[in-house]
């Protein structure tokens, strides 16, 4: 069975199709219709709900998209929906601020915004515009133009009072801990489908060997689309999120070893401390709701040609630790991708952790994402660059692009054109030209092939300009 708190009431579920999303569970099974379906693909935020988890003796709140979260992923957590905020006739400070600032028009996106703002208020002692925008980047509103919503986000702190969730936090924490300490199997089945969450690495590995057709579901931010858009019914779901080794980030001194099931929100601060340039990329990867659920293992595992982490990890020279049963092998991220959606992963094999070498002194690392929209968009082109310049010459270079081929890929010809050359404007032009030997991008609704080629080359120019001492910014977002 799975156990979780629906606000303050413990739910025990044994018999339910594990393909059921949290959104459908709320709307269809519980008839809690405050949470809305806008897109059923994690792109609009209308279904945003908040999860509280026990972390280091505290409750950690995070906003997620209910529409792409399988019900089993609620195990051991507290689920808070928009209906839970109001106490009697009194609106929660978040809700009151939205009313006072005229933050709703049609009101359909509003519950999702309220929940994102609620999570923000629970995780930030005071508001700042930048982080608030980041927290709301995954909630679309078609009516207001957002200004009053942002105002409400700033104003919701004026009622400097605790809320019912503060008052019940200890009790909730205790319940979640007791669920966690119970060693019963976390298992859900219904409609001839099953969901299983092993608690050890060995158990996960053997389960996957025994059920090679099972699908690993971590954050589900990609897999769930097969259910809600493709209408596929998945027979066996394996959740790796309870395996301790997959849930930790380890600093080995020379590298960060990131467990495959660690969410972006959990690992990003450590990774960005090492590679500050990653901060913008991760901030723009999906939305906060997605980053609260999505994992590095998932992003690499699904082998998307436009997954944003892959080019960066390839340029950095990261490795993957793959496990199949007891057998473990290490594969460079660069070598992991074979062809469109095909990887070196064998049946029964999975990504255990990602080894990200630490930044090396004297090296420049940059990653640039270009998309139609700044927030929550998929790259037209994503370029990552690691460069070592010694005595004015390029002594080492690794360049990888996403969006330029059927897989995330190194730009070997471009690198060769640069290697040993002076790091000067004159050597950029041949390097740009060499990209034509590396890539033959396609045209699709995100961008044309010509644009992709041109931008890929121009990003080299940007790299050059940004590495010049005292250069003014050449990025619009940094310009103000």
């Amino acid at each position: 069975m799975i156990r979780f708190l629906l606000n303050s009431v413990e739910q025990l579920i044994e018999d339910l199709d594990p393909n059921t999303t949290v959104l459908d569970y709320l709307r269809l099974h519980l008839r809690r219709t405050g949470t809305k379906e806008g897109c059923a693909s994690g792109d609009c935020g209308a279904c945003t709900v908040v999860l509280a988890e026990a972390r280091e003796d505290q409750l950690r709140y995070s906003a997620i998209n209910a529409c792409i979260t399988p019900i089993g992923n609620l195990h051991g957590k507290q689920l808070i929906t928009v209906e839970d905020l109001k106490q009697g006739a009194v609106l929660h400070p978040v809700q009151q601020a939205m009313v006072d600032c005229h933050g709703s028009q049609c009101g359909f996106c509003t519950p999702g915004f309220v929940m994102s703002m609620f999570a923000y208020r629970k995780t930030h002692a005071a508001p700042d515009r930048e982080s608030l925008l980041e927290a709301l980047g995954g909630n679309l509103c078609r009516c207001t133009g957002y200004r009053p919503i942002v105002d409400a986000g700033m104003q919701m702190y004026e009622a400097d009072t605790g809320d019912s969730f503060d008052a019940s936090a200890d009790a909730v924490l205790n319940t979640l801990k007791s669920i966690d300490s119970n060693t019963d199997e976390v298992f859900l089945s219904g409609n001839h489908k099953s969901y299983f969450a092993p608690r050890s690495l060995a158990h996960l590995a053997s389960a996957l060997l025994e059920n090679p057709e099972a699908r690993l579901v971590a954050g589900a931010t990609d897999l769930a689309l097969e259910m809600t858009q493709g209408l596929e019914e998945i027979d066996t779901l394996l959740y790796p999120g309870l395996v301790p080794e997959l849930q930790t980030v380890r600093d080995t001194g020379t590298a960060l070893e990131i467990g495959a099931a660690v969410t972006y929100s959990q690992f990003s601060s450590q990774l960005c401390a090492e590679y500050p340039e990653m901060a913008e990329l991760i901030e723009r990867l999906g939305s906060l709701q997605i980053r609260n659920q999505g994992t590095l293992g998932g992003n690499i595992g699904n082998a998307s040609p436009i997954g944003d982490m892959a080019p960066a990890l390839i340029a950095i020279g990261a490795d993957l630790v793959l496990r199949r049963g007891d057998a473990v092998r290490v594969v460079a991220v660069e070598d992991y991708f074979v062809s469109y959606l095909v990887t070196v992963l064998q049946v029964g094999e999975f990504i255990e952790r990602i080894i990200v070498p630490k930044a090396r002194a004297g090296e420049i690392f940059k990653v640039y994402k270009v998309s139609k929209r700044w927030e929550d968009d998929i790259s037209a082109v994503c370029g990552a660059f690691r460069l070592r310049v010694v005595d004015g010459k390029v002594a080492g270079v690794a360049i990888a692009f996403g969006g330029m081929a059927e897989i995330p890929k190194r730009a070997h010809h471009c690198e060769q054109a640069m290697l040993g050359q002076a790091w000067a404007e004159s050597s950029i032009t041949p390097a740009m030209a060499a990209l034509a030997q590396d890539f033959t991008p396609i045209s699709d609704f995100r961008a044309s092939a010509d644009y992709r080629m041109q931008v890929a080359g121009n990003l080299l120019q940007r790299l050059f300009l940004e590495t010049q001492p005292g250069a003014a910014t050449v990025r619009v977002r940094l310009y103000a």
Partner: protein
Amino acid sequence: MRSLPSVSVREATGPTGSPGQPLKHESAHKHVSGEAIYTDDHVAPPDVLHAYPGLSSVAHGKLVKLDLESVRRAPGVIDILTLADVPGQTDIGPVYPGDPIMVNERVEFWGQVLFVVAATSYDSARRAARLAVVEYDTLPADLTIEQGLAKQSLVRPSHIQRRGDAECAIREAPLTLEGEIRSGGQEHMYLEGQASLCIPQEDGGMYVYTSSQHPTEGQKLVAQVLGIAMGLVTVEVRRMGGAFGGKETHANQWACLAALLARKTGRAVKLRLARADDMTATGKRHHFMSKYRVGFDRNGQIHGLDLSLSGGCGMSPDLSDAIVDRAMFHADNAYFLPAAHIEGHRVKTHTVSNTAFRGFGGPQGMLAIENIIEHIATTTGLDALEVRKRNFYRAEDGRDITHYGQKIEQHLIAPLVERLERSSGYQQRRQSIQEFNVGSPVLKRGLSLTPVKFGISFTVQHLNQAGALIHVYTDGSIQLNHGGTEMGQGLYTKVAQVVAQELQVDLESITCTATRTDKVPNTSPTAASAGSDLNGMAARDAANKIKTRLIEFAAGHFGVAAGRVRFHSNRVSVGEREFSFAELVQMAYVQRIPLSATGYYSTPKIYYDRDKASGRPFYYFAYGAAVSEVVIDTLTGEYKVLRVDICHDVGRSLNPAVDIGQVEGGFVQGMGWLTTEELVWGKDGRLETTNAASYKIPAVGDTPADFRVELLPDSPNVEATVFHSKAVGEPPLMLGISVWCALRNAIASVASHRLSPVLDAPATPERVLNACTDLRRRDCS
């Protein structure tokens, strides 16, 4: 009820809620708590069925086989609806025929409904709908305006507006230019998708909950497809989760299909489209192609304009006649055209029928002329703002008649623009931007001020009418109903404020009830920005009827002159006596005075003679202007809007908070249309951008960090509109054109403003980069 409800004898405060106050939306507290009910949230009867359509997968072809056996055998399936099952009319074209409710032999767009399946769950219905075996004889499909125009394939005849001899004026002008520009369509992306719930009634009737801007049309069409009288159908709409024109006609089909299955199965049926199917199967804003020749002088003043506007209509007329007309009506924007020849073509393509979208063709017409103004500015070397000012309508020199013969009576644009130019620091910023651009090879800034003049009224005259219904109960509480629908624009709030003002009662005592065709009949769509103008006046009329009866009663009952009965602050003074509103109402009830009234309004003064292409189609004009500043990256085409200043005319505002919400939201939506919102179709006619992941509406970070919005003060409507307010729904969308012009301005700096960039809309980063590349190339050659 025998005893009357007890009421407090004296209510100390109030009234709260009269017009002019920035009151909260009437449903705000329900929006934030999740208590507001949308169509899919209604508690449906326990045996409700879920309907889902099967959609075509060719753009144009003959349907040769539709095998539904696997659909019928799929788990949970109860019934299937095909064209043969429709007892009544099968064409649901709202104005002209052309929209078959389901495909009859010929498929005319990818995503057209072939059949509908009803199952016990939403998921089963969706899965089953994908199991049909369908074969087509594929026919060549026209997917672009050019293809349709080349064949003269039109959904409606072209229309021409003429003033003077444009050809001669252009020929004789000192300077001439020609060019063309394309603007893309726009997906409404209402957050709540299309949804209907139909419940069969006795006598073969149908009760319909639907997310629709036009309940009466839904009622009419449901009746027609069922083959029953309109009187047997009731349509209810409490609120929509956004609409923007996308639920004016394109909500009807889903209500009709659900009703047909409800009739066939005898059970309640719900039909809700998943997002990708909603985006594929419902219409969008018309994409346009405009070609122009313009004659002007070195001062930038236009002498003559020859403009051809071609709207991509999709496969059927829908509302395209009026939409292309409105594009033509707005091809002048705020500028006097001494001689003009404006053609409007309604081009047929094998794509989903395009439909109403906030602005209704106006934005497309306006973009065409603003592009021409920019082109003139580059050619003359003048600042575009100067060109704009020199062409504004003005009272002097006979420059106050539009190209369709309407006299401009309120000359607001020049003073409004002057005010904004000053408050935004336009000239100083222009200077500093020029200096910045000279020293910045990669990043370039751009600035633009664009005006908006938007005509208010339905251009179809008979739609300019509205009804309302008010009930006063014996505890003094009031129910308000009118023909307008609430889609977030605050209509219910504004109309309630009007009633609160007329009856001098607290807004809280008024309950806004769901729009229902059995309460107020024969309503017009809530569209054309006319919601509060029409329904506010109708409700005011109803409130006044009740008030008049109460005055007559009180005067007679207490023997005072009618002039000495006064409503104020929840009380009524009758000579020296004073009662609470509720007390007076109870007295009136006991004396058998009717406490319910209908109200009605029709807009005066308007007409348009389409044969002569001349008249006064608009009761009045709403004005506004915006200054936008952007920065672009000439390496990638990425950009950011740095600051926006807006001054907008809403007459005497009924509710400044609601109006500012409309101005800001409209601006951002217009900006989205012209920047990141790109619809992409494949060569096979399939829409490829079918979700929020691939179709990018503005997100929170796209809202300018520095966003200064002002309602033009002290500017009551000169016409006798409700409390001299003005319509606000659509006009602000076109303020977004300032962003497009600012991008164009930044791009032009690449060639030091000597050359005019070619920038089609939406100006995605790719188009911005291409325009920069093109300019650099032309500048070198």
